[in-house]
């Protein structure tokens, strides 16, 4: 359709008065013609006023909406948040180093690689096909990086996103599935671990491309902190020889209190030390994105033990 023919239709389009086939043609044209897009936006604004906005919906409209709005999962939300950030990147930004030697595009491929272990456990197909038995996340990352090597950023972006959507969809109806990542997790914990890593790498990419960090919602950070607290005994016991326990007070919205035994095999003892720190800071610490010395931390009780514990926390990273 020519520019002039479409321009003629813009008023009708803004009023939703075009037949479906012409609506489609107009919208195709608007995606590529700035002149028409500007006029279309202005006419849309004018059309929005034609209703008048003078009637109020019934009082129960909001409560009905909130009851019907499905709660968002931590994983699905972190995927959407990273997708939003990726959609905004320039080609040059996709090639920037984001973590060690990995560029933004390679980091997205790395996320897709670890996600594919979850996809495989859910019975979904993966690209490249998953070997049997499934490899470690590091070996899988190497395979996916080779597979993605000659693809464009938008191909890598789409491949990551569509697999993530399939995982989110399949996991709502999955039964008791175990997923082998760096450790073996029940599906629910595996998805929390994936949400956690997706958030941390989103902040890596945000930092590499000059955007502010944005932590997950309180209701989403809470299960991540809980997962870290449950995984930590096995991690910390490698570095700290002690049969004591640490009380963790994680403050701020989404926080809580956990008792972490330093020897997973020993019976629960009363904590020898208590550490108070913000929950978001703690999650970044456990992902090795912040050092204990950068954080506002309050310690009570056995101070050397607390310091040894805090020094061992970042070895939980790379995030499970």
């Amino acid at each position, binding site marked *: 359709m020519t520019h002039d023919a479409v321009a003629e239709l813009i008023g009708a389009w803004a009023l939703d008065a075009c037949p479906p086939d012409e609506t489609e043609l107009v919208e195709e044209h608007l995606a590529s013609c700035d002149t028409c897009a500007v006029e279309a936006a202005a006419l849309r604004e004018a059309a929005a006023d034609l209703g008048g906005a003078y*009637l109020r919906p019934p009082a129960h409209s909001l409560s009905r909406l909130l009851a019907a709005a499905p709660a*968002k999962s931590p994983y699905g939300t972190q995927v*959407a948040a990273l997708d939003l950030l990726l959609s905004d990147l320039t080609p040059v930004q996709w090639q920037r180093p984001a973590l060690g030697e990995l560029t933004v595009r390679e980091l997205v491929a790395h996320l897709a690689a670890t996600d594919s272990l979850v996809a495989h456990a859910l019975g979904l197909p993966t690209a490249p096909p998953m070997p049997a038995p499934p490899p470690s996340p590091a070996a899988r990352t190497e395979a996916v990086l080779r597979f993605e090597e000659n693809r464009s950023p938008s191909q890598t972006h789409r491949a990551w996103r569509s697999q993530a959507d399939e995982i989110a969809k399949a996991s709502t109806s999955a039964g008791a599935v175990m997923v082998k990542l760096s450790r073996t997790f029940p599906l629910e914990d595996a998805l929390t671990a994936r949400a956690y890593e997706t958030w941390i790498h989103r902040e890596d990419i945000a930092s590499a491309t000059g955007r502010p960090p944005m932590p997950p919602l309180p209701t989403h950070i809470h299960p991540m902190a809980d997962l870290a607290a449950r995984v930590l005994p096995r991690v910390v016991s490698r570095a700290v020889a002690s049969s004591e326990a640490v009380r963790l007070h994680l403050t701020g919205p989404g926080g809580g209190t956990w008792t972490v035994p330093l020897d997973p095999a020993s019976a629960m003892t009363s904590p020898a030390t208590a550490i108070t720190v913000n929950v978001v800071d703690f999650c970044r610490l456990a992902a090795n994105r912040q050092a204990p010395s950068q954080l506002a931390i309050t310690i009570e009780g056995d101070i050397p033990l607390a310091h040894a514990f805090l020094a061992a926390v970042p070895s939980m990273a790379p995030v499970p």
Partner: protein
Amino acid sequence: MGVRVGPEVEVSALFQQRATDDANSRDRLVHGDETALIDLHERFSSLVYTIAVRVTRDSTAAEDITQEVFLAVWQRPHDFQPDRGSLRGWLAMMAHRRAVDLVRREEAHRRTNLAVRLYDATFSRGDPVGEQVSDEDAAARLAEALKALPERLCRAITLAYLEGHTYREVAVVLGVPEGTAKSQLREGLRRLAEALRETHTGEVEGR
């Protein structure tokens, strides 16, 4: 302080601010923040609901459309592109398209069985379903802007937007060629957009 800028600069600053606010709302929704959905409902449910009532003339259907629109925003906030228009315009479009789809589906039934028209073909200030008036000023400004339009343009726009006719049907009803109907719709909306811009300028200067 003391620096006077022309109304164009202020309007442009206003639109810039609007685009930033809209992008923030969209980002909060993408991050799963339910308070962003509550804010959006607070700001725009009247707009969405009024469009749906006026097009469908059915308060129950309008309530359902209002729910659908805000649920769609909650589930797919990234469909909104701040550089392609305002959040307000986008919500209005979603409401209007749903309402028009409903009317077109039920057209035969609706147009033959509705014994009493709840509205005149032109803009009624009446309140057929008993909801509270929430923004009389907006209704008054709209009535004013429409009155300023020549009758043929006002009629074409009313037929298309509020009665859900395609431009081809508008041409038939008005007995004009399709090309004329298309250009009347465009010309009428352009004039309304112009009047709207003046209203915005007035709002900025009035601060």
